[in-house]
């Protein structure tokens, strides 16, 4: 079956998105044709263009923002003495959703993995060293994933900061909340036992 070229072109565009295969892309296109009027299509394309024009990385923490400095870094009510380090901007939004954390963030934009060509220079580490050199910061919380790469990245940051008087901590890993122990795999359980804390 051959679609008219303009339909086919848009299908190919939608398929560039993660999780979108050909069938889904076709549904998007027909939805656009059948269910959306000219006005909303124009609105969509303008929103897309604006997104790329306006979104950039926060000068301080590398989080996504449409200003020069993100709303977290520029909020003076937040605790300026703690920095929580995450892999990606998405992690910032996840942690913000909990409303538990009141300090600042630092986004690495990845994890160390020489096998994928990612060394310390490829991550936003230099800006981190500059930030901690200013005396305001007292504590660092490392919240990279508990994958091999995330663990290595955490160890690296800890090692570089070991001779400073900063308090460096790592978020706890183990059994998910609400999970019955019998469903946890061996590795998770042994990590949870390793990371036990006084009760």
């Amino acid at each position, binding site marked *: 079956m051959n679609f008219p070229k303009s339909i086919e072109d848009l299908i190919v565009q939608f398929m560039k998105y993660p999780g979108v295969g050909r069938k889904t892309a076709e549904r998007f296109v027909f939805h656009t044709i059948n269910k959306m009027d000219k006005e909303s299509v124009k609105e969509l394309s303008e929103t897309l263009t604006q997104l790329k024009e306006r979104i950039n990385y926060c000068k301080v923490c590398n989080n996504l923002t449409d200003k020069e400095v993100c709303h977290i870094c520029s909020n003076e009510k937040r605790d300026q003495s703690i920095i929580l380090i995450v892999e990606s901007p998405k992690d910032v939004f996840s942690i913000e959703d909990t409303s538990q954390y009141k300090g600042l963030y630092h986004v690495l934009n990845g994890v160390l*993995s020489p*096998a994928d060509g990612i*060394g310390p220079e490829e991550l936003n580490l230099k800006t981190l060293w500059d930030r901690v050199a200013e005396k305001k910061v007292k504590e660092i919380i490392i919240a990279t994933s508990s994958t*091999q790469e995330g663990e*290595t990245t955490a*160890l*690296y940051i800890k090692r570089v900061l070991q001779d400073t008087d900063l308090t460096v901590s790592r978020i706890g890993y183990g059994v998910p909340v609400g999970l019955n122990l019998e469903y946890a795999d*061996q590795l998770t359980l042994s990590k949870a036992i390793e990371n036990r804390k006084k009760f």
Partner: protein
Amino acid sequence: MKLNQLSLYNYRGYNKQDIAFGKGVNLFIGDNGSGKTNLLEAIYFLSLAKSYKTEDSNLIKFNQDFSRILTTVDLIDKSYDIKIILSKNKKKIILDGREIQKLSDYIGQVNVVSFLPEDMNLIKGPPKNRRYFIDSIIGQMDRNYLIELSNYKSFLKQRNDLIKKLSEDKNPDMTLLDIYTEQLAKAGEKIISYRNNFINKINLELKSIYPYLANNPYLFEFKYLPSIDSSLEGTLKENYRKDLFVRTTTSGPHRDDYGFLMDDIDAKDIASQGEQRIMILSSLLAVTEIIFHYKKQRPILLLDDVFSELDTTRQNKLIHFLNKSHLQTIITTTTTTNINQEILDDAKIFNVKNHFIRGNKHE
């Protein structure tokens, strides 16, 4: 663990074949190319859900759409049915009527220990062969070993790629190398302790198995030859300069070796072909004992063309030993003329001709 019944349909050269195994020694006698090894391969497939020598699609009989392996496995207290269906680009495994979704959930249902003619390279061949042999046995007993091994391997890959990068750097940042080295050492220590443990166990078993089969007074022992036998972390760190120069991790568990020692002398220098064969067979029999201690089930022993290069006495001793063991053994051979009749009487004999298997009437 015993195979009770096996039925092959469109598998390799077989059209439709039903086999009722005996609980002890099963001897399949036939000429070269008659289909003996294909039968062993089918049983091996039941164990790992893959062939040891080819892709799945080559297992389907020429010009047919699918092939099927069906079996009933008897354990001490229960039994279960396994059905494997192979089509051009799919395999389906059905265990007691339920389709297996994840292959890793299936592997381990049928345990086999096998001797293939190419295993003769174990003693003479490169260390890689011996590492693979030992790794796959430990992995068969304890799945955690495979997890530790793959953990080690991915740290090794990261470290090697980092070393390549650092070796081009005028002012290399060694902090990350320190970290990978420490992690590699930690993972490597676990591997070494698994391997040590296994070698101790196999040597204990060999003490009783080898002298009988070999019919000689020598002491046969495995020797673990770790590439680093002092502190892993310390040695890896001492080797920085060398590693950066050769651009790879030059030592560690990935470079370990094992010696087959006869009275403390490396067998590859002194043992004849027949003696080497007996050493490997003794090791496999020792492995079946270790697996039994671990899993409380004895694996099925597959021996392909095992008699060649063995003298008459050793052939008889081997079959006698297997008759007396609690193992189900499946042996292929071109001839049994050297085996005493009373020893043959305890085994179940099959004749294989042009991919057609017939049980011997006598029994």
